[in-house]
């Protein structure tokens, strides 16, 4: 097996976690920049507008108006596979899972897309600002019924989840705190709320399409009375509640654990957190300190995370299972199938759903549980088929490029082992177990790669190498991150 330098392994690890993997070509570019600068660039790159929205909208009116999950989901997938700011999309995926909002109740793709746009813009910023945006987010206001949270008749749904699932976690507040929190958010509503609610219930697009939603503060419906929240007294409105929440050590712990769970290694599902300690308390403590030192800045926490020894350690490489969206992002960026928008993006979006993750429609307010829960008999088959089918398809420009690079590294012939090592390298310096490595070599040998004269029979070589790439895409390490 070719020995891969620690620098290459580390950069490949970063690009899998902070983005959607890389080809060797991309990896080499990042290596020339250096790890620390790459981390800074990923976090500080504020340009999330490089996606050519006009091009998408010209071809796909359904992705322009984003009424439904198909159009809005396809649009997001197009962003995942074409962005130059991968961490922006990754952080949107992160918050989409933490602040899980679903189309089933919202029944309008545009507010969902608007929410994701807000995650891209503010997801790497300060938590208090993000929670404020979230509390004014029309999709969230409908999703957790704050539209029905009135002065004198509170609806606790948003207040409860803000504390339980979005900031502090169970066990760190009382039932009275939930009630007082909910009182503070009375009047945080949306414009035309009665009409919007009716349209949402009926999933109506008549007569001129679904309306766009916008936040509206209804002062006359806000409970301005004194409240007691987490031991503090005052005539709190939502802004003050968020400020108090962000000051809590429990919030620092909760957010740190989520970031560790998403970027470093799988933690148990969130509902068990009150009863199970973090697997790496030292790492969580470092992130908690970064939270307070930076004034609740998520981007700064992630900067600390990516530059920490616990993230760099090879013990956490390949310890996460790619979500279907991450896997699709990795595969489709590699195949370069969507250099320009084309009609197949909707089909690919459906395939992400078949793998177990319908974008914009998490299964519940808890989001997807991640980790091993991505893998079940049906979804594993879909995942393997998806990766193998697309990465073995020579009609895709990215696949042809990789095969060409493999051949360019060889002389007149190549051994099965050389072929396998080159394919693993070209797909982003993938490290496999010895067992998997030997199995791949056996396949390549049986496939006849070592007997081919590359100068005379290039077409056969191209075909055989694409078949090896297809099998590489099915190994556990490719499905992992």
């Amino acid at each position, binding site marked *: 097996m070719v020995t891969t330098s620690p620098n290459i392994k580390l950069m490949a690890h970063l690009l899998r976690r902070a983005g959607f993997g890389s080809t060797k070509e991309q990896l080499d570019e990042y290596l020339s920049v250096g790890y620390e600068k790459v981390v800074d660039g990923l976090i500080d790159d504020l340009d999330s507008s490089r996606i050519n929205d*006009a091009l998408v*909208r*010209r*071809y*796909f*009116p*359904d992705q*322009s*108006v984003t009424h*439904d999950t*198909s*159009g809005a989901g*396809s649009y997001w997938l197009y962003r995942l596979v074409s962005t130059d700011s991968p961490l922006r999309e990754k952080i949107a995926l992160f918050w989409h899972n933490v602040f899980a909002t679903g189309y089933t109740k919202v029944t309008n793709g*545009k507010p969902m897309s608007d929410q994701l746009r807000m995650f891209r813009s503010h997801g790497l910023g300060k938590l208090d600002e993000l929670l404020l945006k979230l509390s004014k987010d029309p999709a969230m206001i409908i999703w957790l019924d704050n539209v029905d949270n009135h002065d004198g008749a509170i609806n606790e749904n948003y207040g409860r989840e803000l504390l339980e699932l979005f900031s502090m976690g169970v066990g760190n507040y009382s039932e009275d705190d939930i009630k007082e929190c909910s009182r503070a958010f009375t009047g945080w509503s949306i*414009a*035309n709320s*009665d*009409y919007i*609610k*009716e*349209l949402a219930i*009926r999933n*109506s*697009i*008549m*007569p*001129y*399409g679904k*309306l*766009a939603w*916008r936040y509206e503060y209804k002062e006359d419906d806000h409970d301005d009375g004194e409240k007691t929240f987490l031991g503090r007294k005052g005539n709190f409105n939502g802004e003050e509640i968020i400020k108090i929440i962000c000051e809590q050590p429990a919030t620092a712990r909760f957010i740190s654990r989520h970031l560790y769970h998403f970027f470093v290694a799988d933690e148990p599902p969130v509902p068990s957190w009150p009863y199970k300690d973090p697997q790496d308390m030292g790492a969580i403590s470092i992130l908690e300190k970064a939270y307070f030192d930076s004034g609740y800045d998520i981007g700064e926490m992630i900067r600390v995370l990516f530059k920490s020894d616990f993230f760099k350690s090879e013990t956490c490489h390949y310890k996460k299972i790619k979500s279907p969206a991450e896997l699709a992002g990795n595969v489709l960026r590699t195949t370069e199938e969507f250099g320009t928008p084309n*009609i197949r*993006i*909707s*089909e690919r979006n*459906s395939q992400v759903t078949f793998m177990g993750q319908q974008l914009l429609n998490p299964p519940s307010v808890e989001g997807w549980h991640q980790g091993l829960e991505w893998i079940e008999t049906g979804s594993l088959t879909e995942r393997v088929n998806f990766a193998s089918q697309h990465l073995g398809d020579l009609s895709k420009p990215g696949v042809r490029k990789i095969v060409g690079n493999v051949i360019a590294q060889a002389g007149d012939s190549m051994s099965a082992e050389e072929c396998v090592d080159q394919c693993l390298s070209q797909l982003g310096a993938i490290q496999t177990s010895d067992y998997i490595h030997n199995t791949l070599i056996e396949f390549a040998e049986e496939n006849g790669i070592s007997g081919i004269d590359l100068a005379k029979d290039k077409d056969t070589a191209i075909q055989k190498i694409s078949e090896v790439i297809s099998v590489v895409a099915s190994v556990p390490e490719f499905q992992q991150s």
Partner: protein
Amino acid sequence: MFPVDTAIGKDGRMHTVSRAYVPATAQLRITMYDIDSEYFGIYGGYGERVGEFRWPTGMAADAEGNVYVSDEQNNRINIFSHEGDPIKHWGAAGTNEGQLMGPSGIAFDNEQNLVVADHLNNRIQKFSKDGTFIMSFGNSGEGDLRMPWGVCVGEDNSVYVADWANDRIAKYDSSGSFLRAFGTSGSGDGEFKNPSGVAVDGEGYIYVTDWGNERLVILDKDGNFIETLRGQATISKWADEYFEGNYEEAEPRSRSNLEPDAGQFGGDPHEESAHIEKFFWGPTSVKIDDSGRIYVTESNRHRVQIYERTR
């Protein structure tokens, strides 16, 4: 579902072609109706056989009332009768003269030849009605096009092109020589952002669906800026009928503000149009009928706004 162009056919009959949610191909079709909301039926559908299309984009009616429809995905022109019966199709994919890569807007010239915006080949091609290649232009020098969309033909047989990626309207004479361009990139008066359609009336006034700015822009024959329309849609007869049968929606709608202050949307025309129902949203084409009425097809609002000149 998502109308992208309208042809004004015989007796003023309107033929509007719609794209669809990509998986919901059953909604891909052409609807026949008139200005009084009289409905005459639908025709066309998803596929590759005669009378079918996959990415319909441009429409034009010839002097006999037959309707021509471009198909960007199948790289062909479909022909239907006035009643929507499929007649034939022609066109083949490629980059050579006479071949097509994403045919978008189409229009007939004064000799009943079809002008086609061959958008991924960045050129205009002219064909006879039965598909015989006549000429191509627009892919060199000052008149170099980038992803052209809508086209129209003036009374003198000059060709106007919505030069989408160049943010301008390009004008050529009947032999394809570049004459001049109107507009520069931007959102001010006389500026365009990804124009999708262009039409010229009998007096030479130029109407542009300035798609990226979500508006209709009117220029005089010399290209001087006259006026911008942002959209003034009213409730159609079909919409009225819908509300009559759906009181649960009509009642809260009557208490809603569907014309909020545009200033709160950060100057983004796409967002303004998403929130203000009467505004154009996704205006993909503009056409003018024999009486000078102006028809703007809006893909995102699923409707056609019709205007009459007042001066």
